[in-house]
């Protein structure tokens, strides 16, 4: 029975989750096979699968997938390397926060995609430009969210650490960082999802490889089956990376879940 906030069994949870996809594909098949939508605009599920198979086998689509993943991960890791330490510093020291916060808050609203023409001028259409798009798109969000998390550390834990003899470095290394670590991991997971949207946009413009590039090519050929296959692949990769993140968090931070 449906009751507010009532938990469901894990079997029911998996079943319901799968049910959605079944319904989705059924509606799609009904619309396309039934002739309610023109072929030109939307391929049917079977065509999509066939096109996808051809992409993988004949057109080296695996290489495109690999390129896209490497760009996302590369740009995202660079952003995290800058943002996490800076965010921790901002969360810890009010003066550092006062210095960076106004700029970062401003920069956060600059859409990464709007930088693409400028970045092409600066960095060409090579990999540097792609990495920079991801970097700009994620770094400011990461900085702010990490800073807020660290600044929100329970004050009583910090006070307890001081009365146990911790000095400033001890407070940062053994209270602020470990207490924020699970939330920071969660922020990384979230922002990685956003990074995926930036990479596709970056690949739509001035690129010779990647999932986004394939999608543009397919559009020129009116091959909607390939486009949909590409989109589904992106979704699947997102699902897998999300799952890996959750697994890693459970393994790294058992205390926050027990």
């Amino acid at each position: 029975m449906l009751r507010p906030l009532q938990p469901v069994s894990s079997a029911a949870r998996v079943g319901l989750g799968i049910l959605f996809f079944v319904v989705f594909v059924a509606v799609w098949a009904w619309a396309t096979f039934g002739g309610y939508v023109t072929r030109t605009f939307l391929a049917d599920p079977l065509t999509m699968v066939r096109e996808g198979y051809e992409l993988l086998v004949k057109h080296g689509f695996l290489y495109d997938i690999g390129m896209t993943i490497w760009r996302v991960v590369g740009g995202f890791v660079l952003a995290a390397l800058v943002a996490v330490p800076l965010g921790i510093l901002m969360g810890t020291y009010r003066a550092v926060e006062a210095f960076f916060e106004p700029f970062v808050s401003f920069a956060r609203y600059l859409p990464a995609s709007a930088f693409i023409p400028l970045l092409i001028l600066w960095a060409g259409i090579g990999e540097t430009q792609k990495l920079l798009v991801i970097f700009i798109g994620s770094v400011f969000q990461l900085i702010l969210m990490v800073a807020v998390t660290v600044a929100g550390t329970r004050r009583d834990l910090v006070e307890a650490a001081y009365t146990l003899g911790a000095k400033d470095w001890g407070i940062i290394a053994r209270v602020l960082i470990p207490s924020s670590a699970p939330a920071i991991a969660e922020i990384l997971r979230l922002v990685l999802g956003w990074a995926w949207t930036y990479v596709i946009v970056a690949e739509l413009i001035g690129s010779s490889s990647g999932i986004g590039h394939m999608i543009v090519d397919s559009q020129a050929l009116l091959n909607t089956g390939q486009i949909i296959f590409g989109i589904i692949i992106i979704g699947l990769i997102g699902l897998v990376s999300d799952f890996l993140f959750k697994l890693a968090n459970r393994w790294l931070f058992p205390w926050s879940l027990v």
Partner: protein
Amino acid sequence: MSKLVIENVSRVFPPSHKGGQPTRALEPTSLAIADNDFITILGPSGCGKSTLLRIVAGLDHATAGQVLLDGAEVKAPGPDRGMVFQSYTLFPWLTVAQNIAFGLRERGLPEAERLKIAQDWCQRVGLKGFEKHFPKQLSGGMQQRTAIARVLANNPKIMLLDEPFGALDNQTRALMQETLLEIWERERKTVMFVTHDIEESIFLASRVVVMSARPGRIKADIRVDLPYPRHYTVKTSPAFSDLKAQLTELIRVEAQTAAAH
């Protein structure tokens, strides 16, 4: 010689909003605590007990006056004044043993030694077998036992406790009082213990300091001459009842004043 000297310490909190009145949490208060004394501070809610304890711990600053520990002025928190808080403040990412060893780690003791001391304290506060548990897996009573062990493992000069058993049920609280008393009778640490429970204040203390309603002042300072080691049955002795009646009367007046505000 007195170990801890509180000299005319007062605390006024600035107004919380523009045009508001500042809060006088603590009137100038003086108190001397001898080495190995167990004093309890008894007073109605909001009378400045936590404020006084936080100033001694160095977590808050006195508006005027000073606190001296062994003749040196207290300016900042330090491991010589261990504190057990009213709320649960174990580090959730550390196990019981790691929590107890936190201060030792900050002091730079080698891991093997830290572990040995932590295990020893686990045993003494009755947490044997729970060394590897995380705080979330413990009951409130066990969490406070760990918090007490965490302070004692650090070997402080004075131990400050702010209503550590306030959130526990009566049976657990009674057991915790006995554990704490046992440890104190063995270690003879100087203890400052804040509570609003009259029975608790008498059972534990060698001296009960009663505070008045806000703004807090010391209203009475009463020696408890019940001999140590104390057994829980002392709670039913005539001497205990007399003290209890006396303190109840004192506190009643203050509670009424507090309620009238």
